[in-house]
């Protein structure tokens, strides 16, 4: 059986991801930005699938594209975006932004030229069938304490969000 993770899919998904990322910035309407961000999130989930991480890909689609982005769209509908669409959308920091972009591009090109032998090709891929099981073992074994702290953090976030968004407590 031929592997599905061909370079063609990588280029397709990464083009979609970068296009979505650029559209998030350049669109004036916040709803369009949210849709573009969803495109980016879904293509990154596809890249996770190519990297032998099916469980992370599923969580990315369910939590990010399904949960967080719906929250974003709800807030966009709660506030009045007609007014903010008429205001100036960008800061006047073009020269700094262009300088930073050129420096970052130079860094990328130098890394791309020099890094040919930096990461040698490893043999077989990760086992995809037992991925979820392995992650579960890690979460409830090695990372038990971090898992508990994360649940506490989510509880605090729930209480904080309710207190913050309520009109009168």
């Amino acid at each position: 059986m031929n592997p599905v993770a061909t370079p063609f899919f990588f280029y397709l998904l990464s083009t979609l991801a970068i296009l979505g990322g650029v559209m998030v910035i350049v669109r004036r309407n916040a709803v369009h930005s949210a849709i573009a961000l969803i495109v980016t999130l879904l293509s990154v989930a596809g890249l996770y699938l190519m990297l032998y991480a099916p469980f992370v890909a599923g969580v990315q689609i369910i939590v990010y594209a399904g949960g967080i982005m719906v929250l974003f769209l709800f807030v966009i509908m709660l506030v009045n975006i007609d007014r903010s669409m008429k205001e100036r959308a960008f800061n006047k920091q073009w020269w700094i932004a262009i300088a930073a972009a050129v420096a970052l591009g130079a860094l990328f090109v130098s890394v791309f030229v020099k890094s040919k032998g930096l990461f040698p090709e490893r043999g077989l891929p990760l086992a995809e069938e037992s991925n979820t099981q392995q992650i579960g073992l890690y979460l409830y074994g090695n990372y038990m304490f971090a898992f508990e702290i994360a649940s506490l953090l989510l509880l605090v976030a729930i209480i904080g969000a309710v207190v913050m968004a309520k009109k009168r407590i």
Partner: protein
Amino acid sequence: MVPLSYYLMLSGILFACGILGFLLKRNIITIFMSIELMLNGVNLSFVAFAAHWHALSGQVFVFFVMVVAAAEAAVGLAIIIAVYRTRETLNVDQVNLLKL
């Protein structure tokens, strides 16, 4: 087989898009989306390294990043609603005082 450096480049480009949006935009909701974009770029590099070094810890770390992102999004959007209720604006330049 796509080399690891390509994934790292893509993650760097996504992170740079997030930084640009964070620095240049004035709408506070779009600034929040830029933060999510940055977190996604970092997550992609985590998963790419996990696949390269055959270490699942990278994929477990992505979960913790997602937990932090979800908590941050919930609290941040609540703050946005509270700010919008008192000031009726989403422009970050007009939200420069903590009290009215």
